[in-house]
Each structure stands twice: as structure tokens, then as C-alpha cells.
């Protein structure tokens, strides 16, 4: 299941190139982790190495030096959401990425207040 990084085709190909992303994910079309959603934020675990990673995973890990959502990372990498999610899932299971998210049922009043203040200040 070694997803060889493609030697060409760099740049923002978006979802139009279908074969390349399929190769990047080692043929997988769905991440094993179902908790990675479009708004899920990722951060690189301090000290995480890039050894053994594909070119796209290295790029993703670099983007995650500061917290970034899967949607933003996808836009940045020019990859469809599903591919980014699969790449991220591998990095999470290898302990290189940390996952941050919010369960709506546990949202506290003070968090809502902070959002209201921010929106009012726009």
C-alpha cells in the first residue's frame, strides 16, 4: 500500500485529475476514521517526522504546523476533501497529527458568548 508520490502533476489540479488522487490514497476512497470532518482542525504533533511520507503527506504535515481545518488544507493542497481526509487519517494513526473538534451538544454558553462578541465586532 505504498502510495508513490507522483513525479509530475504538481499544482492545483483540483478534482479534475481522477487517477492521481486515487494513487495518492493507495486506492482507498474512504478514510477509516469517521471523525474527520470538513471543519476538523489538525495540528502537527511536536517533533513529528516526515520519514516515509508521500510528498502530499509532507505538505499536509507542514500546513498543520499551525491549526488548519481539513477544508482549508484541501483548498491549499488543491485536493478533494476525501483525499485530504484519507491522507490525514494515516498521519493521525501514526501519531503525527492531532485532531481538534467540537461536539455541538457540549458547546458552552461562554463559547457562544465569545462568538456573539466576535460577530458583533465585524
Amino acid at each position, binding site marked *: 500500500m505504498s502510495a508513490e508520490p507522483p513525479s509530475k502533476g504538481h499544482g492545483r489540479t483540483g478534482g479534475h485529475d481522477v487517477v492521481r488522487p486515487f494513487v495518492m490514497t493507495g486506492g482507498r476512497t474512504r478514510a477509516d476514521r469517521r471523525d474527520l470532518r*470538513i471543519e476538523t482542525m489538525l495540528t502537527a504533533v511536536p517533533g513529528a517526522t516526515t520519514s516515509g511520507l508521500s510528498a502530499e503527506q509532507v505538505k499536509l504535515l507542514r500546513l498543520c504546523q499551525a491549526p488548519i481545518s481539513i477544508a482549508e488544507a484541501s483548498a491549499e493542497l488543491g485536493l478533494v476533501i476525501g483525499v485530504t481526509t484519507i491522507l490525514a487519517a494515516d498521519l493521525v494513526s501514526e501519531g503525527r497529527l492531532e485532531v*481538534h473538534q467540537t461536539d455541538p451538544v457540549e458547546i458552552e454558553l461562554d463559547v457562544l458568548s465569545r462568538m456573539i462578541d*466576535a460577530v458583533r465586532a465585524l
Partner: protein
Amino acid sequence: MTIKHDDRPAGDAWKPRIRPVKFVVAGGFGAGKTTFVGALSEIPPLRTEAAMTTVGARVDHRRGSEAKTTTTVAMDFGRLTVDEYLVMYLFGTPGQERFGFMWDDICTHALGAVVLVDTDRLDQSFPAVDYFEAKDIPFVVAVNRFEGTTRHDLGAVRDALGVSPNVPMTECDARHTESAKQVLLLLLDELVNAARARAAATVV
């Protein structure tokens, strides 16, 4: 004797949790979703594409060629940073109804939703209203006032959409930040009420 107000371990690198929160902006094609997102976002709306999920559920690995029948749908989203640890994301749903199966991917764990309504194409708002009601996602309805469109009484729009009386409804002009702000604040008020109700229910 002093009372400590927090329980952060002394000397440890204690940090608040990083929390992304997601809001969904739905509505029919041309209802103004991207305009609305752009009016509130601190960055020009970003576009990303979703595709693999549509293929994923249906791919037969023994017939690899099937994997190439991919369609992509574009999704625009914006961002509003509250502080270092709290970020609001606004996702516009793809307008086409035929991508309804993607909605779960977009909407799962959304804090709330805005349904933008173009009164000239009222029927295009039905799927969104039905979806958020079925999934119990708090939402508000905002009638986007375009110049030259027929004005309708909000009560009439509510009746036509079949939206229950407890769902907040308002008018807006999605092009203007001030107007879009009011819609988002209406939704946030709704969420505050829901959070208070939850808190009251747990204190028995």
C-alpha cells in the same frame, strides 16, 4: 485561604482546547449562499471540492474503471477567527439537489444552519428546511431581498415553506456584512436559548 479558580496543573503547558465550530449556509441555486459567506468571512471564500465520498460508497474494487466516474461538487466556505482557540467556519452547501447525499458529510456536527430563501424560487428551499428539521440541527430562515424580486410577507413565506413557528425568520441582504451579521446573531441567540434549556434540564 485562597481558592483556586482553575485546575490547570502547575508548571504544565496547559492550553485551552482548539475548537473549530461549523455553520452551514444552505439554500437553492442562486439564493446568495457564497455572497452571504463572503460578507462574514475574514478571508475571501475558499473553494474546495468533494468527490471521493461520492465514489467511495459505490466503488467495486474488482472493476477499477468504476472509480473514474467521479463527479466533483464545489463548496465555498469562509472563516471567522474568534481567538487563537476558537474558529467559526461557514460552509455553503452545494446548491444542486442531486447532491443531497453529500449533505451528511457537510452537516454532521454543524452547530447551526442558515437557510437562505429566494422568494422567486421558494421550492428550492424545501430540501434544506426538511433536512435540518429531520436532523435536529438548529436553523434560521433568512429571506434574501434581491432588488426587483417580489416582496412577500414573512408569515406567508413561513406558511409556504411549512416552517414551524419556533424557527426564527428574518429578511436580509446577503451582500451587506451588517445584514448578514444580524442573521448569524439570530442563529447564535437561538443556540444560546438551546444551551440554556439544556443546562436547565440537567440541573434537576
